[in-house]
């Protein structure tokens, strides 16, 4: 049975997918995950989940973000406005970064 492994580097971080292991049950999956994925990379916690229990949808079947122009959803669209405060500017920077990566450049 295959178990997907999610590693959290530090307390408070997100658990992000880092690979998978073969194991007969959850307990052993955790042990193998610890050995394979928790030894060298900084690790605070690991999750395992049976591969079959994970659902997936990818860009072959879904249009993430839709197909129409939704620029009204982005802070960058309101170009004539200077961010009122630091946190607004931070949010806009995060959105700009996400948009750039979504477009693949």
């Amino acid at each position, binding site marked *: 049975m295959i178990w997907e492994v999610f590693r959290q580097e530090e307390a408070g*971080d997100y658990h992000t997918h880092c690979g998978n292991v073969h194991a007969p049950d959850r307990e052993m999956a955790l042990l193998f995950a610890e050995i394979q994925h928790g030894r060298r990379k900084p690790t605070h916690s690991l999750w395992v989940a049976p591969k079959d229990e994970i659902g997936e949808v990818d860009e072959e079947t879904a249009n993430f973000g839709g197909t129409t122009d939704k620029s009204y959803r982005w*802070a960058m669209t*309101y170009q004539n*406005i200077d961010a*009122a405060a630091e*946190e607004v500017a931070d949010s806009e920077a995060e959105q700009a970064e996400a948009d750039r990566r979504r477009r693949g450049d």
Partner: protein
Amino acid sequence: MDVETVTERAGPREFSPKDDMPEEYRKAATRMIQFHANSEIMGAYLERPFIRQAPSLDRKLAFSAKVQDEIGHGQLLYRAAESLGIKTREEMLRELEEGKGKFLNCFHYPMDSYVETPMIAFFVDGAAMRRQATLKSTSWEPYAHAMDKVCFEEGFHVKHGEDILRELMTGSRKEQEMTQEAFDEWWPRIIQFFGPTDEQSTHHGFAAEVGLKQMSNDQLRNAFLNAYIPKARKYGLEIPDYPRIEKRDDGTYEVREDDLDWDEFFKIAKNDYEPGVGQIDGRKAAQDAVEWVRDVLDDYEQTARGQPAAAD
């Protein structure tokens, strides 16, 4: 863990559902996150009519996106609150419809005219964002994670709100006057967003000690005024004479608390304020109207798990 240990360890994203947290912490966190979640929902309902009433297609689309976002924030936050093990999401939603759930003072007031929309979408969202940015460092990890996503999205809300304000204040004389009138009316409520000054705030002490809250009401209000008073002036809005706000030598502000209507504020806090009661009931009606959708989903969830629907 006892409260003493919690206080010692309290830091950003320090505690998660894995930790054995004392009831006092879990209750305080639930109160805070449930209030936040309720406010997202009630705010969304207040703005919903403007998906239709906004004057251009762009604005309609932006309002529909924003309302969707706010409902999504409510969902995220109920999940974060649920993870404390005090109340389920169903319980919290029921409390909201029964008028027991508390939410932000600003969302108890009716919003009838389009010129009022920047009062929420710019000033209230701006104030909320100030607070939410600090909550990225709250000690309850699921709450902080919800704030990551919320803050990511909110930049659009605040800028969209400001763009409406800019448009109105560069519009016709009539539009400018109506916007100023709306501002006069909303300004004291916006100041009250941050609650009474620290000395009078009842829940601040404990929430700050255990790291749930990162900044005091006064600090937040100050930071807000610092950024948003210049913005209001930039668009030609006149800051109302009351409440009197004086700038201290160190650049911080002193708001004369006596100039604000605290009777109304506390009436609102008890969900006794008339327009707010109507808004709670309005949301309940909307909730009831789609009850059948939730029922169908619940039944399906039971059968999809291989259990007959009537099993429990």
